[in-house]
C-alpha cells in the first residue's frame, strides 16, 4: 500500500487460502481463541443463551399464568415488593423476571431461525451471483438491491395486514431481508476471491463450478459470514422487538420483550418496571452481540480492524 504509513499491524497478517480440510483446524483455533474473548459481552451472551435453553428450570414462575391478586407488584427493593417477584409483576400479575427469561427464548430462537434461513439463502445467492457473473449476476444483484431499498418495518406492516402476525409470520417476513444483506456482502467477497490463484488452479484442473464454489469460495467467505451473522442477530432482535412492540410481531400472551415494553407503557408513571427491564434485556443482548461480533471481526480478519 503506497502512500499510507506502514503500521506494525499491516505487516504480518496472513491470508492463507482456506479450504474444506482446514476448516477443522480453523474451528479448533476458534474455540481456543474464545478464551481471549472480551469478558463482559461473552458472559452476558452466555447468560442469555442459558436463559433461553434452560428457561423452564431457571424461571421462578410460569410466564403466562395470570394472578390478578398479585398484579402491579413493585420490584423487591421497593416498598410493597416481595422476594417472590424479584422484578415485580405486570398488570396481569405475571412475574416480570420469568417473562424476561422466557423472552430470551423467543428472541434468540426467532433470530437464529431467520439467520439460518435467510443466511444460507443469501450466502448461496451471493456466491452464485458473484462467481458466475453475467446475466445471473445482474438478475440476482438487481433484485437484492431492490430488496435492500425497501423500508423494512413498513413493508412488514403490509405483509402483516395480508397474512396476519405471529412468530412464524415474522420469520417469514424477515428472512428475505436478511438474505439480501448476506447476498450483497458475500457477492462482494466472492468477486475478489474468484480472482485468486487457487481458484485459477482449481479451474485449470477441471473442477466444476459448483465444486469451486463449495470447496474454495465458501470456506473463504466463512469468516465474514460468521461476523455478519453475529451482528445480524443483534439487528434482528431490535427489528423483531420493534414489531412486537407495535403489536404486529409476536402476539400476546407470549413474553416477547418488545411486547412487554409496550404492555408496560400505559403504566409508565406508576409501574415503570414493566417496561424498563425487558428493554434492558434487549439492550444487553444486542450490545453484547455487537461487542462480541466486533471482537470476532478483529480476530478473524485483523487487517480490517475498525471501530
Amino acid at each position, binding site marked *: 500500500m*503506497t*502512500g*499510507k*504509513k506502514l503500521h*506494525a499491524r499491516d505487516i504480518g497478517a496472513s491470508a492463507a487460502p482456506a479450504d474444506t480440510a482446514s476448516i477443522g483446524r480453523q474451528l479448533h483455533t476458534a474455540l481456543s481463541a474464545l478464551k481471549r474473548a472480551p469478558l463482559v459481552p461473552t458472559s452476558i451472551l452466555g447468560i442469555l443463551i442459558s436463559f433461553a435453553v434452560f428457561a423452564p428450570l431457571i424461571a421462578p414462575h410460569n410466564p403466562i399464568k395470570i394472578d390478578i391478586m398479585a398484579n402491579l407488584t413493585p420490584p423487591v427493593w421497593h416498598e410493597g415488593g416481595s422476594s417472590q417477584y424479584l422484578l415485580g409483576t405486570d398488570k396481569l400479575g405475571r412475574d416480570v423476571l420469568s417473562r424476561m427469561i422466557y423472552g430470551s427464548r423467543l428472541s434468540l430462537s426467532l433470530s437464529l431461525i431467520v439467520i439460518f434461513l435467510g443466511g444460507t439463502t443469501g450466502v448461496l445467492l451471493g456466491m452464485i451471483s458473484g462467481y458466475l457473473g453475467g446475466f445471473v449476476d445482474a438478475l440476482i444483484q438487481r433484485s437484492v438491491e431492490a430488496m435492500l431499498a425497501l423500508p423494512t418495518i413498513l413493508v412488514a406492516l403490509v405483509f402483516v395486514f395480508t397474512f396476519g402476525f405471529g412468530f412464524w409470520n415474522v420469520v417469514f417476513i424477515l428472512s428475505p431481508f436478511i438474505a439480501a444483506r448476506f447476498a450483497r456482502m458475500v457477492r462482494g467477497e466472492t468477486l475478489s476471491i474468484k480472482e485468486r490463484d487457487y481458484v485459477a488452479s482449481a479451474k485449470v484442473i477441471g473442477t466444476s463450478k459448483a465444486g469451486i464454489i463449495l470447496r474454495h469460495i465458501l470456506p473463504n467467505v466463512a469468516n465474514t459470514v460468521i461476523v455478519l451473522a453475529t451482528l445480524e442477530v443483534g439487528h434482528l432482535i431490535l427489528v423483531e422487538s420493534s414489531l412486537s412492540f407495535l403489536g404486529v410481531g409476536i402476539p400476546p400472551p407470549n413474553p416477547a420483550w418488545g411486547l412487554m415494553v409496550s404492555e408496560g407503557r400505559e403504566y409508565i408513571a406508576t409501574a415503570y418496571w414493566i417496561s424498563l427491564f425487558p428493554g434492558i434485556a434487549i439492550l444487553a443482548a444486542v450490545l453484547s452481540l455487537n461487542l462480541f461480533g466486533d471482537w470476532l471481526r478483529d480476530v478473524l480478519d485483523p487487517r480490517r480492524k475498525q471501530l
Partner: protein
Amino acid sequence: MSGQTDAALPTPDKTADADILLRVEGLKTYFYTRKAVLKAVDGVSFTVRKGETVGLVGESGSGKSMTCLSIMGLVPTPGARVVEGEAWFGGADLLAMNKQDLRGYRGRRMAMIMQDPQTSLNPVYTVGNQVSEPIRLHLKERGERVMARVMDALRAVRIPQPEVRVAQYPHQFSGGMRQRVVAAMGLSTHPELLIADEPTTSLDVTIQAQFVSLIKDLQRESGTSVIWVTHDLGIVAQCCDRVNVMYAGRIVESAEVRKIFKAPQHPYTKALLNSVPVKGVKRERLYQIDGQPPALESRPSGCPFWPRCPHAMDTCKEEYPPKTSTGGDDFVHCWLVEN
C-alpha cells in the same frame, strides 16, 4: 521571518562555516511500539552547504526517509519521536523549536517532495488550489497575484498549458506531471532547502530522467540546496555533489561523489557499487550483497553491517566504529579504516 528561537541559553553559532545551510548532529528517531523500540534513525550527522546537492543513499529500512521527516518535524505521531539530536538551519535548531516557529520554516525555507505523487496530492482539490496554499500562506499574496505566482510555478516546472491545468484535479494528470506539480508546490516559495524523498521511484524510467534533469536545472538556476534520497546510484552520479551512505539507521560513509565512486571506503559502499551492473563490463552473474538488512528490532551489536561484511573482525561485533575522517568533510565509520 521567524528564524531565531527564544532560547534562554546562549546558542553557540553552529553554522560557523558561512556557507553551511543545514547541520544535523546526532539525530535519533525511535518508534515506540508495544513490543519493542525501533531505532529508525540511530545517530545521524551530516551537513548540507548552500547550493549543494547531497545524496542520501541506502536500502529500504535504512532510515533515510525518517531522517528527512525528522528534520522537517513531520515524524508520524503517535508512535515515533525524535529522541535526540540537533538540526541547525540558518542559526536555529529545528528540533528544539516550538511548532509554530517550525511551521514558518516548512514550505517557506524548506520544502519536500515525496515518493508517490498519486497520494501526495489531495484528490478533492484542484492543482491550482493546492499550489497556491504555500504562496498564500508564506508569501502572503492575495487575489490575482496568487494566480500569477501559481502560473509561474507551473511554468517553471515545464507543465504545458498551465492556464488549463490549474483548474484540473490531480487524477487528470499523469504520474510524471503530478510529480512536477508537487515540485511546483515546493519550489513556489523559493526555499533554501529542498528534500526530495525518492521522487522518481514510482515513475517510468524515461520520465525519471526528465524529472531528474528538471530538478537539476531548477537547482542550478535558484541555488537551492537539495537532499536527494534515493537507492539509485545512477541518480547519485548524475546530480549529487556529495553522498551519505546510510545503513541500519546510521551514516556509514560520507564523501564527495567522485570519491565515493572511485575510492569507496566502507565495505557496504563497495558492495553497493559492485552490485550495479556496469555497461561494458562482463560479469558471470549479478553481484548481490549476501543477506538482508537487519530488521529494526533486531540490530546486531557493534557495527550493524558485520553479519554481511566480508572483512568482519571481532571488534566489529562488539563496538560501533567511531568517525574517521578521510579528507575534508568526508568520513567513514569502519574499524578497517580507523587510524
